[in-house]
């Protein structure tokens, strides 16, 4: 194509003008994909592996297919240290979301082997152990122990001692119910009644201190009677306390009982049917809230309870709200009993006359030789209990506290088996807790009224 090149010099001054190539492309030196090149992209680029399955995939079509997944319920530890666990309770909960599927209580964090220790000490030395079972209502436990030993000894205490024991037991019942009612309200979120009722319990502790010298663990009610007579003016103070306690309970009831929030928190929680309650061995307020009329003070009366006139409330629904109301009414009935005791307190002695069992009076011990000998033998060796076995139960504020005591003719018991009510109630948690939400579990533990001194012993 360059035949006209000899004519090109006339185009010398047009060298800035590009050459017009009519047959060759402008960027003929640049490479462009051709057919061979495109062939290598046919076919599969990558095969999916296991790692790739985990990558995030963009769904291009609108159809989303469900993925099969294996889920497991969460197990949490409602641990031994927890403000809502009412002591040292380790509750292993299997939760499906917020709902409890399975509840498994682990206990034993307060186990002190009391039953074994009691075999190595004589009966008076065993009395302080008994205080430490249900430590919120101490005098009621002592009464149970005293009645059990008296059954083995086949003795009866004088009427004044019985009246004092009833007074102590009802004061313990008030203390226990004050704590439990306000504790439940505290777990539900209302903090104030707890402070009010703890102030009332403080007054009960002061009454204990006037009675026997110790605020909580009294060691006052002993087999054979009580250890000392009530001080002068004590009954007046008890009367004044009881007069005012009704109004304190009214204040708490104003906050909690008519409250929609409290009702919503407690109604229907832990509902128990009567036959289930009996089947699981419940007793006390847990049994009465289901509608069963069973109270050991009325059915198998001890210590002169048949002399006093009082009602025993019985619930209908068996749920936590019923228990709250039941304990409040029981508190007021305890006030009624205390008033009757104060009115009819008999005069007389406070210990059995049998000098082989009860200590002599201090003045007598310092003057009479025989009294000194008896005092020495009773304090060192203790009184000998004739051989026998008994199961004696009393109506503790939480339920039925029973002592299976076997004596072998020495001054130490051969075996003391303690049946505490909170043990059964906590075992019932595993069937009552199913289907409840996690927040309801803490309310349920509060209304069951458990205390770990009782459970673990």
């Amino acid at each position, binding site marked *: 194509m360059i035949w006209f090149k000899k004519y090109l010099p006339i185009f010398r001054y047009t060298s800035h003008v590009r050459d017009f190539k009519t047959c060759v492309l402008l960027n003929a030196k640049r490479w462009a994909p051709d057919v061979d090149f495109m062939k290598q992209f046919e076919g599969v680029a990558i095969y999916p592996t296991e790692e790739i399955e985990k990558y995030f995939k963009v769904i291009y079509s609108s159809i989303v297919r469900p993925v099969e997944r294996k889920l497991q319920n969460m197990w949490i530890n409602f641990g031994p240290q927890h403000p809502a666990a009412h002591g040292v309770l380790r509750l292993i909960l299997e939760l499906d979301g917020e709902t409890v599927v399975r509840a498994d209580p682990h206990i034993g964090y307060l186990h002190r082997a009391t039953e074994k*220790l009691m075999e190595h000490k004589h009966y008076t030395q065993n009395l302080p152990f008994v205080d430490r079972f249900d430590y919120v209502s101490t005098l009621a436990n002592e009464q149970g122990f005293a009645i059990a030993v008296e059954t083995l000894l*086949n003795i009866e205490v004088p009427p004044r001692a019985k009246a004092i024991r009833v007074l102590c037991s009802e004061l313990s019942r008030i203390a226990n119910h004050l704590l439990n009612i306000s504790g439940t309200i505290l777990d539900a979120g209302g903090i104030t009644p707890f402070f009010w009722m703890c102030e009332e319990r403080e007054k009960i502790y002061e009454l204990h201190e006037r009675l026997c010298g110790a605020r909580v663990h009294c060691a006052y009610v002993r087999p054979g009677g009580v250890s000392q007579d009530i001080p002068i003016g004590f009954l007046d103070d008890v009367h004044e306390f009881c007069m005012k306690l009704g109004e304190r309970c009214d204040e708490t009831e104003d906050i909690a009982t008519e409250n929609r929030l409290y009702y919503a928190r407690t109604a229907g929680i832990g509902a128990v049917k009567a036959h289930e309650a009996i*089947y699981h*061995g419940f007793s006390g307020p847990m049994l009465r809230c289901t509608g069963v009329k069973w109270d050991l003070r009325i059915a*198998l009366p001890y210590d002169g309870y048949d002399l006093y006139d009082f009602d025993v409330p019985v619930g209908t629904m068996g749920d936590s709200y019923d228990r709250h109301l039941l304990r409040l009414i029981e508190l007021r009935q305890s006030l009624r009993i205390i008033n009757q005791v104060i009115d009819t307190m008999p005069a007389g002695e406070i210990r059995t006359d049998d000098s082989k069992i009860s200590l002599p009076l201090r003045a007598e011990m310092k003057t009479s030789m025989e009294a000194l000998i008896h005092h020495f033998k009773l304090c060192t060796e203790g009184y000998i209990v004739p051989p026998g076995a*008994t*199961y004696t139960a009393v109506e503790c504020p939480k339920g039925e506290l*029973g002592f299976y005591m076997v004596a072998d003719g020495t001054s130490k018991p051969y075996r003391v*088996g303690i049946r505490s009510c909170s043990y059964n109630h906590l075992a019932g948690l595993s069937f009552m807790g199913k289907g409840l939400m996690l927040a309801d579990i803490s309310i349920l533990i509060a209304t069951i009224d458990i205390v770990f001194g009782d459970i673990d012993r």
Partner: protein
Amino acid sequence: MSFLLKRTLGAGKNLGRAVLNSNQYTGIQRVATKTDVATPQVETRPTVAKLDPLQKSQLIDFGKYIAECMPKYVQKVQITAGNELEVLIPPEGVIPILQFLKDHHSAQFASLVDIGGMDVPNRPYRFEVIYNLLSLRYNARIRVKTYTDELTPVDSACEVFKAANWYEREIWDMFGVFFANHPDLRRILTDYGFEGHPFRKDFPLSGYVELRYDDEQKRVVVEPLELAQEFRRFELSAPWEQFPNFRGNPVSEEVVNQSGDQPKKE
């Protein structure tokens, strides 16, 4: 002469006894017994417990009735502590007897109150398992006792009473009595890695091991026990007889004894 001596000596003897006993003239006074079945006498002395003779006679009748209904398993029926009924059975009879007592119309002991264990090492079957039952309908209590040793299992009462669950776990933990067919027999009161059965009489009161926190290993370690003071054993037995008034009192009165032998109560 001898007449005078006897009088003075006799007077001295009476005087001594009157001072030492709280109840004077023991020879003349009627001895208190709990065995007045034939002629129930009402107890009038203020310091002695008053038991209801009607309740006792009803319990005796019921004890005889149980022995008639279940002659295969009831070995002995007795009354202890004045007015508590006890039924003694072999370990094979636990489930039949408990089921009978729970479901029979004139028994209806629907509530299992307590299962207790007791260790009497002298016996060949050293462990005693005691079931305490309560009838809400008839306001009565009853006790069922069986025996076993370390290796023989007892049938679990869980199928009869749900309340038995934790009680049997406790007896397994504390005594080592195995309960067959228990849904969940594991330790309940002792520590998680604890070895031994604490309430047996040959297990010492202080145990074998002690726990402490070791700063080097940063955990709680278990070590053999070291006590600062040796265990003081107080021998508290008195040389003289303690309860002359109760000398005639039996530990337990037999209502029915079908096995014929006389086991001694501890």
